[in-house]
């Protein structure tokens, strides 16, 4: 049995919010264990002064001191999990500063999260899985070339994608809206195999990712079942042919959004979330429907409009839709409304998530929403950079899975 991945917890509030067990459970589910760095009161006093952030909450002081002990190597850990209460301004400042401090001064992978009493281990699982993968499976993540014939499947909340690859080339694609998870997976695989002209028996290794990864993974006997943060990072740098150096990967998904800083194809910091569907691909789907266009036409339509002409707030999908209806009723053009919807989603992601990662260029956008040119344009404007959208970006998870799965072919032989 391999040794457990040791995750140091820096936290304020989880024990009193009833979520410490959820954190422990999520870690245990991915072969990791949570521990609290052992320090003394003397360390707290000294480290607090040295760190220079004069906070009031004692438990945040403790978190700062523990972070400092980790960074300075007096306490060993494989990864760090920073957790504080949602809506606490003091804690948010500490959380951000600690994350930045650890990333800049140590090789430790970090994930930070703001919880409520409703946070469950399920919500934390993907983050913990990514954290342990980055900490312990660097060999897996080092893969840059796809070998043999492999299948990747991304069972997402909105769509299911399948990819067949052979000798570092994509030879078959399948794409479907997710209805029944297993049925959609089977159909997407059938489509990809048909396009590739490959039989199921010829597939040498299979990888799954996305929300349905465990269910589907078991169903199709996957060799690799891996969360989408690391898989998408790998897929993005592979497709963008940017396997070395830094970059940032943004994936605005159907249910949540991911922003990942990547170095040499390995994720560094990442955020994953989305408070409301107003900041997701789902809102753009609703916009397209209301404007009477296909989702594929929304981007080009938005490119012809001007977002500033329409007041739009998509923080909440309900109010966002209301803004949209109001604007149309007030005589706004469909182009302007489409542009405003794209800008609004980009702005929410920018404000809520991109502040938590240090953006490194190039910025690569992936996932289905990266095909909406208006959204990519809006994000580029906000980040003041040219955004890279690699070919097959909508299949990112499936490509990443197929690529990583090829690492299992030799093992099987």
């Amino acid at each position, binding site marked *: 049995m391999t040794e457990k991945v040791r995750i140091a917890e820096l936290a*304020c*509030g*989880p*024990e*009193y*919010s*009833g*979520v*410490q*067990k959820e954190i*422990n459970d999520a870690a245990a589910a991915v072969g990791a264990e949570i521990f609290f760095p052992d320090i003394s*009161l003397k360390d*707290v*006093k000294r480290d607090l002064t040295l760190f220079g952030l004069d*906070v*009031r*909450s*004692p*438990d*945040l*002081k*403790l978190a700062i001191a523990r972070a400092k002990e980790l960074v300075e190597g007096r306490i060993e850990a494989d990864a760090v999990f920073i957790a*504080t*209460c*949602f*809506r*606490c301004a*003091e*804690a948010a400042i500490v959380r951000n500063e600690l994350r930045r401090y650890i990333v800049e001064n140590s090789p430790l992978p970090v994930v930070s999260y703001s*919880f*409520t*009493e*409703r946070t469950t281990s399920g919500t934390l699982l993907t983050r913990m899985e990514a954290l342990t993968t980055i900490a312990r499976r660097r060999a897996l993540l080092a893969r840059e070339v796809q070998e043999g014939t492999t299948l990747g499947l991304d069972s997402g909340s909105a769509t299911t994608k399948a990819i067949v690859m052979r000798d570092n080339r994509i030879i078959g694609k399948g794409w479907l809206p997710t209805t029944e998870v297993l049925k959609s997976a089977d159909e997407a695989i059938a489509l990809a195999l048909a396009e590739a002209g490959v039989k199921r028996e010829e597939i040498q290794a299979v990888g799954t990712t996305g929300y349905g990864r465990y269910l589907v993974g078991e169903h199709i006997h996957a060799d690799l079942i891996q969360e989408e943060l690391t898989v998408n990072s790998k897929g993005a740098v592979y497709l963008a042919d940017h396997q070395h150096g830094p970059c940032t990967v943004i994936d605005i998904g159907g249910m949540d959004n991911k922003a990942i800083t990547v170095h040499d194809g390995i994720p560094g910091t990442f955020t994953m979330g989305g408070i409301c569907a107003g900041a997701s691909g789902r809102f753009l789907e609703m916009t397209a429907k209301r404007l009477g266009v296909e989702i594929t036409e929304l981007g080009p339509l938005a490119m012809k409009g001007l977002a500033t002409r329409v007041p739009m707030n998509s923080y909440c999908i309900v109010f966002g839709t209301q803004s949209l209806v109001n604007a149309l009723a007030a005589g706004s053009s469909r182009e302007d409304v489409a542009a405003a919807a794209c800008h609004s989603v980009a702005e929410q992601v920018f404000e809520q998530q991109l502040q938590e990662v240090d953006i490194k260029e190039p910025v690569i956008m992936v996932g289905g929403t990266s095909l909406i040119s208006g959204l990519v344009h809006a994000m580029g404007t906000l980040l003041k950079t040219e955004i890279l959208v690699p070919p097959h970006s909508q299949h990112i998870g499936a490509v990443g899975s197929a690529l990583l799965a090829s690492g299992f072919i030799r093992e099987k032989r």
Partner: protein
Amino acid sequence: MAKVFIYPTTSLILSDLVSRFGHEPLGSALGIRERIQTAGFDSPPLQVTPEEPKKGLRWAAVEVPSGVRGRMAFIGPQIEEAEAAIIINDADLAFGCMGCARTNELVMFLLRHRRIPVLDLTYPKSEEEGEIFVAAIREFLEKLPKGGKAE
């Protein structure tokens, strides 16, 4: 014997002196003990379940962080039960139950709002201050109903 709320609620010194002088200290240990000794859903380490922050809504609104509401779920009833309070005002290094400054501000406010007898202190930094600290606590406690005598 009067019920005396102690602040910091985790204070060894206050817990000791209040009970030594014949009164009942109300501190976080009692709230934790109650939870640790009650059957229910497993929620280690403190047996504070996600239901507790909801109970905390009695003292703090829903937009207040869950950690504040969860702490208030067991500190709040003690504040309401208290007949007097002793507050150490420079308790900057008390953690865990006292680990959240926002909760502590609310606790302090609610205590003052109760209009019960309150003794305000700071930690002693010399023998001379220690002498006044201990004697003041005894005097304060003696004035409370059914006050006990020092051992």
